[in-house]
């Protein structure tokens, strides 16, 4: 075998090993690298009470309640399998709506609820003009 063929085989093997190793390592990181907990992730498990965490999912339809003080809200985050009630005081982003995605930053309470100190809106991967949207964005919450 000529030297350059040897190098070709070695280099391709090395590249394959690097890509494979990174893919394996990272997909194994699944839980540790998660940006947020979904309600089902904490259902029936000990709550991470001691840490500041994020909770993500869909804002349940009809669950947003504005409190009399005008700046506090309560709503329910769901992923279809479990639900977590959330309380938040502050300004929510424009995309924060019932039936669409949300990531709440804050702490779980011993009773299983969640007190958020920041709200991020998470939108899905679909983009469409207003007239076509209508009920499309809403079906997502039913699927999940």
């Amino acid at each position: 075998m000529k030297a350059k063929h040897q190098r070709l085989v070695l280099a391709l093997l090395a590249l394959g090993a690097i890509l494979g190793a990174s893919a394996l390592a990272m997909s194994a990181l699944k839980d540790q690298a998660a940006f947020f907990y979904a309600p089902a992730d904490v259902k029936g498990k000990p709550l991470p009470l001691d840490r500041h965490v994020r909770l993500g999912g869909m804002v349940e339809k009809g669950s947003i309640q504005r409190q009399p003080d005008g700046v506090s809200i309560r709503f329910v985050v769901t992923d279809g399998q479990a639900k977590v009630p959330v309380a938040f005081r502050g300004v929510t982003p424009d995309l924060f709506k019932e039936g669409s995605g949300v990531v709440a930053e804050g702490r779980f309470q011993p009773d299983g609820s969640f007190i958020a100190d920041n709200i991020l809106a998470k939108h899905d991967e679909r983009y469409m003009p207003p007239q076509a949207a209508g009920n499309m964005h809403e079906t997502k919450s039913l699927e999940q």
Partner: protein
Amino acid sequence: MPALHALANPARFLRIARPLTPILFWLGVVLVAFGCWAGLMLTPPDALQKESVRILYIHVPSAWLGMGGWSGLAIACLSYLIWRHPLASVAARAIAPAGATFAALCLLTGSIWGRPTWGTWWEWDGRLTSMLLLFFVYIAWIALDRADADRSGDGRVPALFGVAGSALLPIVHYSVIWWNTLHQGESVVTGKIAPSMLWPLFFTLGGFTLFFAGVVLMRMRAILANQKVEARLRRMAAA
């Protein structure tokens, strides 16, 4: 690979690259200009995000070229390691700053887009963090390559780093699939964008890609010209 080998001859490469550079560059500029105009004027706003969705026409091509640039750099590094063609290391050196610029543009436009839609400039989620890492890896490669050239190294160390750095590419791409992230999943390849909003993206994607190729050819020619000057100066100094 006979075609690539023929191109590895710098004189032959220059004969082809010289007329090709302005064609790629200007065709790219025209396509980007049209795509941006169409994206601002002809497409409807998004149902949820309203007008801010239009930054998509810059953000997606930037992400594509930030990652595509590293793919090109890694292929150049790999072929330098295997065939030791000097033109391959010239190509890697030409791609690096262009790819880094588009990776930065991707982070910047993403941040500007994230503020009105998500409600944050920056979050340490899987996609954002891995893309930031890719940007840092570009900078590290440029620094390593310069250090290697200063010590008149043979370019093997930066070439190895270029190949190893491609480990980040699947992480950036699959981050939104493997992990739950704030960044949404794939839109373009899965066809989740309404056709009436999608079509200008192909103009900006194609346009930025041609522009990128034009810039890379331009830089390769400049690097080759520089090498020629340095070789001549060395000969004159020796004489």
